């Protein structure tokens, strides 16, 4: 009897104490990507201290993962019902996480927020977080595929003016063919296994006025003339590029560029530090992604959005953190890629990148990849079509027609089962 009484007392005490603790302090679990730069880790710590000064009752617990493990960890944790409260997700995972019910719409928070406004962020990044009319994430950082990195010596060697890089598709091809000999090439394409090649082919299609899916993301438009022409151009570039592009990854092509084997290379703005580290002697510059004679240079967005999980016990606190982390002042300091907040991006680019105006302009017009919860499957169909085209297994028209049919089936399958 005495024992039971004592036990009851202890239990009561525990409940009271933990109840008090909950009322006073909140602990937010936040998952981010691992950053290698010491400076950035320091900046994150400082920003966190600032947040805790603003909201002393909110504790933030960071857990970081390297890119390769990040998606698996998030999916396992979310599926097991034990996700973090807040995390960043790749733009192309955003619809998947939204459709699975892992993350919550943020429209109400945004409507009431004095700080988070749509127009403060790159529109392509903002729209990447919208799924079926609702906003599921706030853009954190961005990148654009692609800019044209070029080696000025290649231009000089063939009598071209290195200050006049190619603007149009035709100029890119012609200059590239001048640089192409048995030993060196105009550019290095890549397919590999990742999503980079889709970003490149999408950018070619966007620049040519086309799209991958229609406006409602319900029908594939890859068999339309803009896409067909874009892929025909991509195929043509095979002639000014070293063999092996299907097996090659963007990293391999990058190495060909820094080793001085190719004169031009399509890659995002974040590659600058790596070019400098691997080829400190190279006289390189950056130009906009080439456009068709009658088109506009439009790149493809990459980047990360901040999301709040349905299972988060303290959603208001989570929102406060998202608001803080994506604000101009903080976003600029804690991001390794270009910040998604436009003002922060300008400051960041001016401070950390060469050719900031070109990059900014390319970011401002960039478009996001198709919004579809099963995007990885869609991307694989696209990649297979690109591979068939480059390996001469199918004509461009045929490959894209097949891909369109497959993607339409995928879309139908997905939307009819909901």
């Amino acid at each position, binding site marked *: 009897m005495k024992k039971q009484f004592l036990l009851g007392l202890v239990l009561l005490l525990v409940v009271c104490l933990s109840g008090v603790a909950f009322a006073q302090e909140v602990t937010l679990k936040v998952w981010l990507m691992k950053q290698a730069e*010491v400076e950035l880790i320091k900046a994150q710590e400082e920003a966190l201290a600032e947040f805790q000064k603003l909201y002393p009752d909110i504790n933030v617990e960071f857990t970081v993962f390297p890119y390769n*493990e990040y998606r698996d960890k998030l999916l396992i944790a979310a599926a097991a019902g034990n996700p973090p409260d807040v995390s960043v997700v790749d733009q192309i995972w955003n619809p998947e996480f939204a459709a699975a019910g892992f993350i919550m719409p943020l429209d109400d928070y945004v409507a009431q927020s004095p700080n988070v406004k749509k127009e403060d962020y790159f529109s392509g990044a903002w729209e990447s977080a919208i799924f079926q009319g609702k906003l599921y994430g706030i853009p954190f950082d961005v990148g654009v595929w692609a800019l044209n990195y070029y080696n000025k010596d290649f231009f000089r060697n063939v009598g071209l003016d290195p200050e006049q890089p190619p603007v149009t598709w035709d100029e890119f091809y012609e200059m590239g063919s001048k640089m192409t000999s048995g030993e060196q090439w105009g550019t290095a394409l890549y397919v590999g296994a990742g999503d980079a090649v889709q970003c490149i082919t999408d950018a070619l299609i966007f620049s040519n006025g086309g799209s991958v899916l229609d406006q409602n993301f319900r029908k594939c438009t890859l068999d339309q003339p803009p896409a067909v022409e874009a892929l025909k151009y991509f195929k043509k570039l095979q002639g000014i590029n070293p063999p092996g592009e299907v097996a090659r990854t963007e990293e391999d092509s990058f190495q060909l560029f820094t080793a001085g084997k190719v004169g031009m290379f399509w890659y995002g703005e974040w590659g600058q530090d790596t070019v400098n580290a691997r080829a400190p002697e190279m006289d390189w510059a950056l130009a906009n992604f080439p456009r068709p004679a009658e088109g506009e240079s439009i790149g493809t967005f990459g980047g990360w959005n901040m999301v709040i999980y349905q299972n988060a016990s303290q959603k208001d606190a989570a929102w406060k953190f998202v608001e803080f982390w994506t604000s101009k002042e903080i976003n600029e300091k804690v991001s390794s890629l270009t910040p998604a907040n436009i003002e922060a991006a300008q400051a960041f680019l001016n401070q950390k990148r060469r050719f900031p105006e070109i990059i900014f302009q390319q970011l401002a017009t960039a478009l996001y990849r198709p919004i579809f919860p099963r995007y990885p499957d869609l991307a694989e169909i696209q990649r297979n079509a690109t591979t068939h085209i480059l390996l001469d297994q199918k004509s461009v028209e045929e490959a894209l027609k097949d891909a369109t049919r497959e993607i339409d089936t995928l879309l139908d399958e997905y939307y009819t089962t909901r």
Partner: protein
Amino acid sequence: MIKRQKTGKITIYLFAVLLAIFVLFPFVVMISMSLKAPDEQFTSPPYLIPKRPTLNNYLQVFGQGSMFAQYFINSLLVASISTLIVLGVAIFSSYGYARINFPGKNILFVLLLLSQLFPLAAIIVPLYRIMGNLKLIDTYLSLIISYLTFSVPVGVWLLRSFFLGVPRELEEAALIDGCTRFQAFWRIVIPLVRPGMGATSAYVFFLTWQEFMFALTFINSESKRTLPVGIFDFVGQYETNWGNLMAASILVCIPVFVIFFFIQKQLVGGLTEGAIKG
């Protein structure tokens, strides 16, 4: 005749050298890469010997912002404890399977081996839920327990063959001389299977040292990650820090090399010596 022997020897040497080159080449490239600055890593044509060798990659692996040293300690801890437990269980269990007759022995042994047929991916979800219910997610214990699921059967199975290799007569002689069964086991048999114990623990250590999937699934905190998971810190979303990655890979290999060197000596010398003198 002599000539024929000579050409035979030369061929053997030739193939041995070829094999060594084949096996060692990737490792040599790793070492070379780990000693190069980024601008020397991907040149065309490539070369093995760095023009300006640097230890920067190694310093960066242990430098500020890197958790490598912590990962190393974690791996060492988890692998050593798992190995000790496996060995403790396996010496008794495998002796039993080798020497003692008991009902259901064969079926139990087959079941033990059968557990090895399950792909790890199939048991990871139930294990995750069990660990979750036991509140063991994100603890070293979750790793050690799950490593036992696949390493105990391997350990028992490996060690059993070493016990079978010890002549029964030695034990019988010890019993006649007045030893109890346990004394015979402990004083006579165990010293004879020491090489087997070494080989088994080395094998179990390798298994757990390199385990990736459980380590990825059960551990969240950065401070508790093990090496196979942690080494991905050097692989970014877009670019990989090859110099650091290769330096870290070399460092990961070192304990394995050291253990193998040690075990190899035991393996060659141990078994026959003890048996003949005993």
